[in-house]
């Protein structure tokens, strides 16, 4: 069919070094779309690519296309602050996110692609009595769900992260924190590329620069899509379009409880290693880590209105920086290098929708909002199962669209600390 990708190893690195690294080959093809597929995935972000990968790997489907309007990984997958953790409050979320965390632990080996997954721990900091109570509640809930979590008092926080300001005199003093040691960060681009390479090797067509403009439905069954590269038929279509989920839902009159909003992030100039964990604070809304390149990676809050512009207000960035500088006064003179926004799909209960719809063969995976990167492998795993079997996996059954009628919401607002 097509050439298998070469296996990356110290030998391939050495061999390519001899030719000044000028002979590395593209790792996925750029095929023209076929007229028909067994399954089409709309959206080439991390979640779409993992869905295609697991459809091929776990369910044996071979004719699969991922249709992406721009370039793969250029949506929220390539714009997020890469925090990975599973310390969610409710049982349903704890199971879903911890399943994903376990997949992260073996991902680089499985894909033969270094995704730089680093379990450097995530600290969620408490600044007032309410925070302490909420975080302790979550700590206990996590332990009951077999998820590693520890409570650190102020002194232990300082020992774990010496550069944090634990003075009792700051506006929002550090009263303690939860710590999930298995949590951490990964390289976002590598996740998209690694899964694209793995999916391509199993025959998945990754079709970039191809925008979906319509969905064809006949007698309640989905039959295909209209794209800027023409019509493509399939009776199984998975929509994984993050901030653009409503745009696609509106094409077929499906109602979603989602609002799309800008979420911003920024990185500083690179400096020597100074912060070897991830620090998050819900109350003062700041989260920061340091990349392997040495940049501080800082995430802000969402803007309070619908927008598809991928840029937000400066006041939001300012608030975040104020909070970061109060917790880490030594960052105050650092220069920020880049700043950007992504469009996040926010659900009323801050939990995703991974669900069948009333149209047969049409499935939605969306609503991950500000916190779906951590779920990338698990999301694809359960969504592939849902598409292949036309019924949800046990892990995503609670995350169906009907919960907004039945009232069985999975309310992770606030409960899960900063929702990233």
């Amino acid at each position, binding site marked *: 069919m097509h050439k298998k990708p070469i296996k990356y190893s110290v030998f391939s690195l050495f061999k390519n070094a001899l030719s000044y690294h000028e002979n590395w080959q593209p790792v996925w093809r750029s095929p023209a779309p076929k007229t028909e597929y067994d399954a089409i995935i709309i959206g080439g972000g991390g979640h779409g690519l993992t869905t295609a990968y697991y459809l091929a790997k776990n369910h044996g489907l071979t004719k699969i296309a991922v249709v992406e309007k721009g370039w793969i990984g250029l949506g929220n997958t390539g714009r997020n602050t890469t925090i990975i953790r599973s310390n969610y409050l409710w049982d349903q979320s704890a199971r879903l996110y911890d399943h994903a965390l376990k997949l992260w632990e073996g991902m680089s080996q499985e894909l033969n692609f270094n995704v730089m997954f680093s379990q450097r721990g995530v600290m969620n900091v408490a600044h007032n009595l309410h925070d302490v109570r909420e975080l302790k509640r979550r700590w206990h809930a996590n332990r009951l769900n077999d998820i590693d979590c520890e409570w650190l008092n102020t002194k232990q926080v300082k020992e774990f992260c010496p550069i944090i300001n634990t003075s009792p005199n700051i506006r929002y003093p550090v009263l303690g924190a939860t710590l999930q040691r298995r949590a951490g960060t990964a390289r976002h681009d590598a996740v998209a590329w690694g899964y694209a390479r793995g999916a391509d090797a199993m025959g998945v067509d990754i079709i970039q*620069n191809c925008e979906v403009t319509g969905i064809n439905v006949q007698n309640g069954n989905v039959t295909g899509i209209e794209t*800027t590269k023409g019509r493509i038929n399939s009776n199984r279509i998975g929509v994984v379009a993050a901030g*653009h989920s409503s745009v696609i839902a509106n094409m077929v009159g499906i109602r979603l409880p989602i609002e799309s909003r800008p979420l911003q992030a920024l990185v500083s100039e690179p400096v020597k290693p100074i912060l070897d964990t991830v620090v998050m604070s819900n109350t003062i809304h700041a989260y920061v880590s340091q990349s392997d390149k040495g940049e501080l990676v800082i995430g802000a809050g969402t803007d309070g209105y619908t927008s598809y512009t991928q840029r937000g207000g400066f*006041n939001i960035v300012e608030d975040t920086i104020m909070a970061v500088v109060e917790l880490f006064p030594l960052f105050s003179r650092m220069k920020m290098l880049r700043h950007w926004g992504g469009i996040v799909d926010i659900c009323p209960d801050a939990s995703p929708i991974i669900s069948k719809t009333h149209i047969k063969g049409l499935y939605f995976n969306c609503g991950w909002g500000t916190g779906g990167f951590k779920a990338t492998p698990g999301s694809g795993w359960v969504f592939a199962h849902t598409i292949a079997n036309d019924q949800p996996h046990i892990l995503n059954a609670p995350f169906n669209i009907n919960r*907004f009628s039945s009232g069985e919401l999975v309310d992770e607002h606030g409960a899960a600390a900063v929702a990233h």
Partner: protein
Amino acid sequence: MFLINCPYCGEREQAEFSCGGEAHIVRPKNPPELTDDQWSEYLFMRKNIKGIQFERWNHSNGCRRWFNVARNTATDEILKIYNMGEKPPNISGDALDTPSGEPEIGSGNISTTYTKK
């Protein structure tokens, strides 16, 4: 960030305002008779339009009054501001091809299919 022309105070930074979400969603007149699906529709389901959206804004850090805004969510351009209770305006010249008819400048979300009008 953009500017909003408050009908009562004049043009101010968006940061002074709070968005109240999609406008013209009417509270059901007969709550006890509503089915769960109808409640869900009223409480949760939103158009979340990419393009011209009608929404409510409140000048929360100013006069604290409510008004309606017609805004292009693909560009953040405000096309019309009108009073609460008024019908949504008919906006002509909506040449925007959603899903991705963003302008080339001012948006990171440029479609490969966009052609300049």
